């Protein structure tokens, strides 16, 4: 852990981040309380994206709900319907035909590849490493194209339905899928090597915003965020669905919990996803793709699947009618985001950027600064003079760390000469 300069008189500065901020995908409003450059407290206000899908879902029929829930999040648009469908299939007690299982697996894993590459790109963007951003987004393009080819849309695939898949992926397209994922392997390998070798990325990512094993359990985090903190949970293994227990793959875990570990988990998972897709294509049997579910009996069940960001959890209750009585949706970020409190407090303001991005609800740097009064206590947080004093103090600290002479000594006489 790096040492951090203390604030002037222990006063705090409030840095509002959002609700609309460059680079970020979603509107969220963070308030960072900082002392010097250390974040000492933070708060989050959401609601900007709240549309009321859970209530809307009870007014749609069972067959319409998948279209609605795939619009919960566009990047996880195959996993939300799948979690809902798993819940409804458990209520019905129906058996999905094997061909449908394999095809669902293909689409979910293709989505995981494009989502992880998207994250790597955005993480690079947040760090100011735009080459990685451009590369990663270029390499995910073949995946988007193959998804369009096999499902009909680049995002929002609508491929799964209760009891099977809506549209069969013809065998002729299987070769294209293999070609697309193969074209992804090499670039991902190159990206992984670039990330693991780069000393600058090491400096920015290692030991930054560490989420300890204990905190990961206390905050109930899921997905890559948990696996990077040494919590080996993965719904694909812990509650296997579709074809995940029929193909061979590994759960990637790292014990460190820092941002680097999260990047490594995601990059290595991309390879696992490519392996799964290739095996699913190889093993996919011929046959029916729809169990033909007509009615949903009364009952209640949960369904959960592993989205690229973690566990997507749905609960459905039916009273035997046409629409669900209650449909609860819990997206993975909802449990991953609060872990900011454990990982970001005590960090440098500059590192919070990537720390927030690390759990993958993209968030970026702290650009605007306000000098305000704390609404609760009425204490003035920090004024302009103190801020300037602080920045001078900070420069001195850096000069000392780097072993260079203070600016005044190096440039003072020269400056005087020039001005004279």
């Amino acid at each position, binding site marked *: 852990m790096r040492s951090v300069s203390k604030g002037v008189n222990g006063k705090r500065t409030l840095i509002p981040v959002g609700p609309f901020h460059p680079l970020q995908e979603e509107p969220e409003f963070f308030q960072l309380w900082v002392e010097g450059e250390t974040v000492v407290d933070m708060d989050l*206000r*959401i*609601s900007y994206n*709240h549309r*009321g899908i*859970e*209530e809307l879902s009870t007014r749609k029929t069972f067959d319409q709900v998948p279209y609605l829930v795939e619009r919960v999040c566009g990047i996880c648009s195959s996993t939300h319907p799948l979690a809902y469908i798993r819940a409804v299939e*458990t209520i019905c007690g129906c058996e999905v035909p094997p061909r449908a299982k394999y095809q669902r697996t293909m689409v979910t894993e293709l989505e995981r590849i494009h989502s992880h590459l998207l994250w790597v790109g955005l993480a690079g963007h947040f760090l100011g490493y735009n080459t990685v951003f451009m590369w990663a987004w270029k390499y995910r393009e073949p995946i988007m194209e193959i998804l369009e080819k096999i499902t009909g849309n680049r995002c929002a695939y609508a491929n799964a339905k209760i009891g099977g898949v809506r549209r069969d992926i013809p065998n002729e397209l299987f070769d294209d899928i293999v070609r697309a994922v193969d074209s992804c392997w090499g670039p991902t390998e190159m990206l992984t090597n670039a990330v693991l070798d780069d000393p600058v990325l090491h400096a920015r990512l290692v030991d930054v915003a560490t989420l300890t094993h204990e905190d990961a*359990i*206390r*905050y*109930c*985090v*899921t997905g890559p965020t948990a696996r990077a903190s040494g919590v080996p*949970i993965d719904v694909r*293994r*812990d*509650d*296997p669905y579709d074809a995940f*227990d029929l193909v061979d793959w590994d759960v990637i875990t790292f014990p460190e919990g820092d941002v680097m570990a999260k990047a490594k988990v995601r990059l290595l998972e991309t390879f696992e996803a490519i392996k799964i897709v290739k095996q699913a294509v190889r093993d996919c049997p011929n046959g029916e793709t729809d169990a033909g579910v007509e009615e949903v009996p009364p*009952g*209640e*069940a*949960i369904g*959960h699947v592993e989205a690229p960001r973690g*566990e997507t*959890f749905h*609960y459905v*209750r039916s009273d035997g009618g046409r629409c669900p*009585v*209650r449909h*609860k949706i*819990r997206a993975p970020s*909802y*449990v991953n*985001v*609060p*872990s900011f*409190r*454990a990982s970001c407090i005590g960090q440098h303001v500059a590192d919070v950027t990537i720390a927030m991005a690390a759990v993958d609800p993209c968030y970026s740097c702290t650009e605007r600064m306000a000098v305000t009064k704390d609404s609760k206590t009425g204490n003035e947080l920090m004024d302009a003079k103190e801020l300037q004093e602080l920045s001078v103090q900070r420069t001195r600290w850096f000069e000392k760390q780097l072993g260079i002479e203070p600016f005044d000594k190096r440039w003072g006489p020269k400056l005087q000469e020039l001005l004279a």
Partner: protein
Amino acid sequence: MSDTATPSVIERFETKLCDEHAICETRKERQGVYSVPIAKLVPLLRDFISNDNARLATITGIDVRDGTELLYHLCFDDHKYVATLKVLVPRTVDAMESITPWLPGAEFIEREIHDLLGIDFTGHPRMERLILSDDWPEGVYPLRRGFKKEDAQP
């Protein structure tokens, strides 16, 4: 890799639950719903989470005739099992003991239920509005039965 839940462990959970007067409502291959007396819920959750490696997935709130049902979904990841503990919060009470003080991961989940269903979680450190807009009227809960969009005009 076995495909079903570990039976012996599930039996142990169920014995633990039955000792606390819980009733098994539904039992599927890898998930079950148990109705639990309201006073026993928090000790049971605490026991499962600290001793049995359970993970709180989320809490579902459902508005029913006599009050609000709260469903605590616990994932036993090591045993391929998801247990749902169900309690009924009577309409006259509309309050529940918060689990956030010892499980910070529940903070947002409880605040969401507070916003959408009007359940007060006692002992919660920040029981503030989280997911409804600033101009949303107080005392209007969108997931309660009989809610109309017109009631929520600013």
